[in-house]
């Protein structure tokens, strides 16, 4: 401490005769050196075990309250903003599980993700402008179809002027059982419509529409596997998804080149973009690289990664649109 040291004015060993009719207080100056700040001292300088126990109990209660608060906040987030991360209790309970594998074997339960089944088809409605076919969503759709029994339907809204026939068959041939909607776990309804921004509606009562292809992709991906429990990895995935849609798909040539360089260096560190597992980041970036037409001119690591993506076989629906 850069302060002047002053010598004590009087000696510290002065003994005073104190009357016995008063309480004895310990020396304040002497105590500063002896006891730790967090522990309350008794008159004789010792800590009462009862107070200690009480303090421990209070700490425990506070901790529990904070936990509860976090859990409630997490829940509120999932209710009000459907694309928010899973609530804390869920993510902490999932933390012991291994993240999703390439085949998306991660534990997901439609009931917990989409709300309780009321005995009717859970139908995800996606409004898309025919000028911008959502490649990522088509890929995710085909993966969803492998995982669940999905009823896929394509409609044209009266506001869309003309829709090319390939867009009408973008979800593949009609399911043989499509006459019985009850037999499906999930509905995937794609409506070609004159909308400025891609839009997803699920439960009109409890949820506002989700806008933007990236956000809808996050929602759909969560039906396949939970987000990585490690917040750092989850953020990395999110940031790659945003990079893909904002800079690869919509960005200028300069931005695209920069992203490709970034992809190249990220892929130099590992086989996939975010961590050791194939994730939404790979799907989004792959589709956007393909869409921007820069697949052939990309650097070596990216080329290798594109090959590995293609080997997974999820991307045939997207490739249909690029021919």
């Amino acid at each position, binding site marked *: 401490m850069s302060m002047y040291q002053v010598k004590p004015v009087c000696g510290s060993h002065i003994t005073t005769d104190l009357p016995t009719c008063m309480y004895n207080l310990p020396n304040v100056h002497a105590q500063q050196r002896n006891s730790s700040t967090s522990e309350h001292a008794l008159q004789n300088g010792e800590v009462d075990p009862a107070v200690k126990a009480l303090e421990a109990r209070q700490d425990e209660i506070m901790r529990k309250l904070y936990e509860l608060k976090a859990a409630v906040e997490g829940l509120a987030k999932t209710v009000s903003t459907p694309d928010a991360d899973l609530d804390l209790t869920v993510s902490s309970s999932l933390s012991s599980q291994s993240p999703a594998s390439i085949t998306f074997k991660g534990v997901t339960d439609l009931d917990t993700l989409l709300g309780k089944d*009321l*005995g*009717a*088809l859970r*139908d995800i*409605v996606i*409004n898309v402008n025919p000028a911008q076919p959502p490649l990522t969503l088509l890929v995710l759709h085909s993966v969803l179809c492998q995982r669940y029994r999905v009823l896929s*339907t394509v*409609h*044209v*809204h*009266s*506001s869309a002027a003309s829709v090319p026939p390939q867009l009408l068959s973008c979800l593949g041939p009609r399911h043989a059982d499509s*006459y*019985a*909607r*009850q037999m499906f776990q999930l509905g995937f*309804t794609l*409506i070609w*419509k004159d909308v400025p921004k891609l839009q997803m*509606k699920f*439960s*009109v*009562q*409890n949820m506002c529409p989700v806008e933007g292809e990236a956000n809808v992709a996050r929602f759909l991906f969560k039906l396949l596997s939970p987000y990585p429990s490690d917040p750092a990895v989850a953020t990395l995935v999110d940031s790659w998804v945003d990079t893909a849609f904002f800079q690869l798909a919509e960005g200028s040539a300069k931005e695209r080149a920069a992203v490709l360089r970034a992809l190249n260096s990220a892929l130099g560190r590992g086989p996939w973009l975010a961590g050791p597992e194939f994730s939404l980041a790979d799907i989004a970036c792959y589709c956007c690289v393909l869409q921007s037409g820069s697949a052939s001119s990309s650097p070596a690591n990216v080329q290798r990664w594109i090959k590995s993506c293609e080997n997974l076989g999820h991307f045939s629906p997207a490739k249909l649109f690029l021919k």
Partner: protein
Amino acid sequence: MTKEEAQGAAEEEQQAQSKKGLKKQQKEAEKAAKKAEKQAKLADEQQSTEEDDFAKDRYGVSAMIQSQQKLDRVLVRIQDLSPEKADQLIWLRARVHTSRAKGKQCFLVLRQQQFNVQALVAVGDRASKQMVKFAANITKESIIDVEAFVRKVEQKIESCSQQDVELHIERIFVISQAEPRLPLQLEDAVRPDGEGEEEGRATVNQDTKLDNRVIDLRTTTSQAIFRLQSGVCLLFRDTLTKKGFVEIQTPKIISAASEGGANVFTVSYFKTSAYLAQSPQLYKQMCICADFDKVFCVGPVFRAEDSNTHRHLTEFVGLDIEMAFSYHYHEVIDSITDTMVQIFKGLRDNFQTEIQMVNKQFPSEPFKFLEPTLRLEYTEGLAMLHEAGVEMGDEEDLSTPNEKLLGRLVKEKYDTDFYVLDKYPLAVRPFYTMPDPNNPKYSNSYDMFMRGEEILSGAQRVHDAQLLTDRAVHHQIDLEKIKAYIDSFRYGAPPHGGGGIGLERVCMLYLGLHNIRQTSMFPRDPKRLTP
């Protein structure tokens, strides 16, 4: 005159029960008489000044046309008046929509259906003062012949449909005079709701409009509505004919009530009584059994329901479809919904001016639909309602408010005004409805909705005589009464299904109107049998 009035009053007192209408008529007659007198006076005056009227053979009331002569005169349509016709001398027949005299000139707005144009008579070397006066005195809604020069105008005429030209009248003749006092003013009848109240202007109520339907039908709104309705019929016929359907005619006087027994009109039929057909259902089905494969019919349908709502009529036009299918009744749904979508598309593409015209008076959102049409199942609909907080049983029918709510929910999620609700509970459908093969609680039946209101109700029909008998017994229907119906399925019947649409409802809901009487030319309801 005063004596006459006194007499009139005395008469009225005598007929204590005479209605307002009578009084009105009498007053009108008196007014007309007054006017006639006035006109006679005017004529006298005119005669006195006849000598200096140089234009007297350029105007007048022409003799009643009894086809005395066949003129080769070409009459131009108002809608064809465009700047290209500028400075041509043309003949035209139209109604006087409004007239406004201003010193030495008189402005007329001439109307043909929804089109109108401004015309002008001004004192000059071709028209005399008397001619202008004559033009100004022509009553509204009279039919006139005019010869006029088409002239371009500098400033657009905002109030007319032909905004770039006006007519400078050379000759003007009255062909048919309207009574000076109209029971309702056309401008009042097309004024949007609410606007009149603010500005203190009159609006015409529904009953007055319907009582004077001939005049009400002349309004741009009514013209547009019924032109659109004709379009619906045309598109319906065209689409189905293209799909290989055959149009059939079915009898409207029948011996037994077709659907249940209630709600039928009984008519006397020589020594016995007969019923008016509630739907062509049985006859459509018989045609299917007679190998017509796919049939439709357009014709009146009668319902003796004493319900005075915005969407019930006792007589309306039914557009009915019935078809044999191969394996699944969804083939029928697909056919019907595709027909509806073609109609909606045709209306959207070819009737935009009519739709705009109606929207001016009755604003509504444009009709939205999906192609192919959205099909939801009844249980899904119930789940959506449950989610919205509606409590109702699984096998209960949808009430009208729930129907509307469901319509709103579906619109919110799918943004469509037209959808199909499939798989209704068997308990709420008629006995001839085919039960669901997997769940006896449900049936192969469907309703179609426009803007949350039901427009079509249909089903796969039971085509097996034995099952039909069982179902009828289950519904406690007297087998004797429906013997002919059941018998028609005894000699081999293809699986079939169909449904019936109400033309008036389709028009009303497509345009977003709020009363079915607006889309029925001469509506029949429990309280109205005239005109």
